[in-house]
């Protein structure tokens, strides 16, 4: 069996996903015979330039440099994996898409410092992505599972394309919505073992919007529970502002 050449790249992010990757790679150590880490600047000094069998990209696209970089990565990668909510959906920073570009830039940087800022997005807007691993941060287990599947030649579907509720209930938790707590579980990808809910905190949707999610009805439920549109929008915009369905809710509020 040929060793798979693996690369890790980072765009604009907090680099937290790379820490999770280190955990994942620890679990993959005994599979060194099958997989080789060719490029991972956080881990090693000598990095190869490619081409790679599998490239894992974390971080979102925020400027023209990122766009150029992700296109180059795509070209030299057989399989491209978007890791973490920044790479899959744009991440927390995508919230700035709702404000005029220059206003956002000037709020942080001196005039003229940032020239090539673009709309914030996941990498999927610019290149074809083969697999998405959701989460902020993602779960090491998901990375390990996917890489092992790819190792034997599987071309799996994205795992966890189901709502958080499935795992949450299977684990025996009480529904927070029933208790009056704002929770985005029904419209968020599962795979986190309902970690927030198990601690009594509602889901913030860090694993990204589930395409089948019924935002409209969840919104109705939340307003019935007494949350204001503003409060709901605030939570939705943390991780889901780049999803079309959610965007419409944020833009049109009560009139959606």
């Amino acid at each position, binding site marked *: 069996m040929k060793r798979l050449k693996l690369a890790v790249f980072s765009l604009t992010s907090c680099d937290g996903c790379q820490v999770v990757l280190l955990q994942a790679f620890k679990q993959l150590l005994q599979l060194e015979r099958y997989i080789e880490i060719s490029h991972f600047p956080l881990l090693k000094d000598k990095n190869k330039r490619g081409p790679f069998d599998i490239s894992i990209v974390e971080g979102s696209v925020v400027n023209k440099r990122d766009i150029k970089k992700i296109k180059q990565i795509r070209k030299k990668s057989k399989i491209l994996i978007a890791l973490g909510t920044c790479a899959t959906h744009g991440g927390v920073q995508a919230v700035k898409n709702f404000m005029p570009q220059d206003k956002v830039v000037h709020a942080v940087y001196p005039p003229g410092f940032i020239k090539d800022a673009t709309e914030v997005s996941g990498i999927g807007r610019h290149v074809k992505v083969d697999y998405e691993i959701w989460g902020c941060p993602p779960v090491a287990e998901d990375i390990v599972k996917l890489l092992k599947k790819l190792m*034997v*030649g*599987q*071309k*799996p*579907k994205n795992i966890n394309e189901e709502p958080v509720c499935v795992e949450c209930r299977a684990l025996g938790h009480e529904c927070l919505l029933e208790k009056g707590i704002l929770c985005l579980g029904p419209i968020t990808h599962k795979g986190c073992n309902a970690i927030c809910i198990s601690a009594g905190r509602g889901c913030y949707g860090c694993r990204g919007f589930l395409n089948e999610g019924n935002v409209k009805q969840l919104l109705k439920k939340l307003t019935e529970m007494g949350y204001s549109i503003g409060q709901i929008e605030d939570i939705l915009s943390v991780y889901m502002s780049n999803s079309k369905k959610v965007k419409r809710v944020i833009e049109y509020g009560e009139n959606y």
Partner: protein
Amino acid sequence: MNPYVPKAVEIIERHRETDDTVSYKIKWNPKHKPGQILEASYPLIGEAPFGFASFSEDYVELLIRSVGNVTNTLASLKKGDKIWVRGPYGNGFPMKEMEGNDVCLIAGGTGIVPVKAALEYIIKNRNRYGNVKVFFGFRSPKQLIFKRYFKNWEKDVELYVSVDRGDKTWKGHVGVVTTMLDNISFEPKSFAIICGPPVMIKFAAEKMLNKGLNESRIFVSLERLMHCGIGKCGHCMVRNVFICKDGPVFPYSIAKDLED
């Protein structure tokens, strides 16, 4: 006997049929009926349901179309490799009931699989059946499946083949498979077997009804997502039937009401 434990059998022949389909002849001879199904798998990759594409006491033929994770790998196996199988499952066509009558077989695309098994059964027992007409429809001349058998079949049955879109090399009928039925009449007591995409099944069945066939004598083979093959996993359930266990063959009198 644990029904989920598959058996490894050898691939003794491999044929590329079209761009995205291959067929295997495998060394396996379970007692089975045309129209029944099996689960084929490969370790660490996964399992998927298939129809028996042949009727023989010596081997089983399988047609695999690469459309997903499991089928991509299954279709890439070579002669001599092992493939893992379990079955047969489901009811199969009522071949005995059809004896003494004319039979019309209609298939579209990969729907040829169970129909080929029924056809081979009929040819093996040719004197037990009356006039047998076979209609196969494919998208294009390049999409013909099991073409190498056509000549032989023509010795025993009337075979009609059409393509939706022809090309320079194609001299046969052009049009969807049901258009070939237009000018042909059938004995009202005839039986029909139909397999193909849901829309094609509906059209073909309605056409045969119009030609005077009884809806309980038109048998269709249905496709659904299946994981277990033995009526436990629930994926293939429509109303009160499990396609894997109670089907996949249904008389049109029942199939027409299987609304989700």
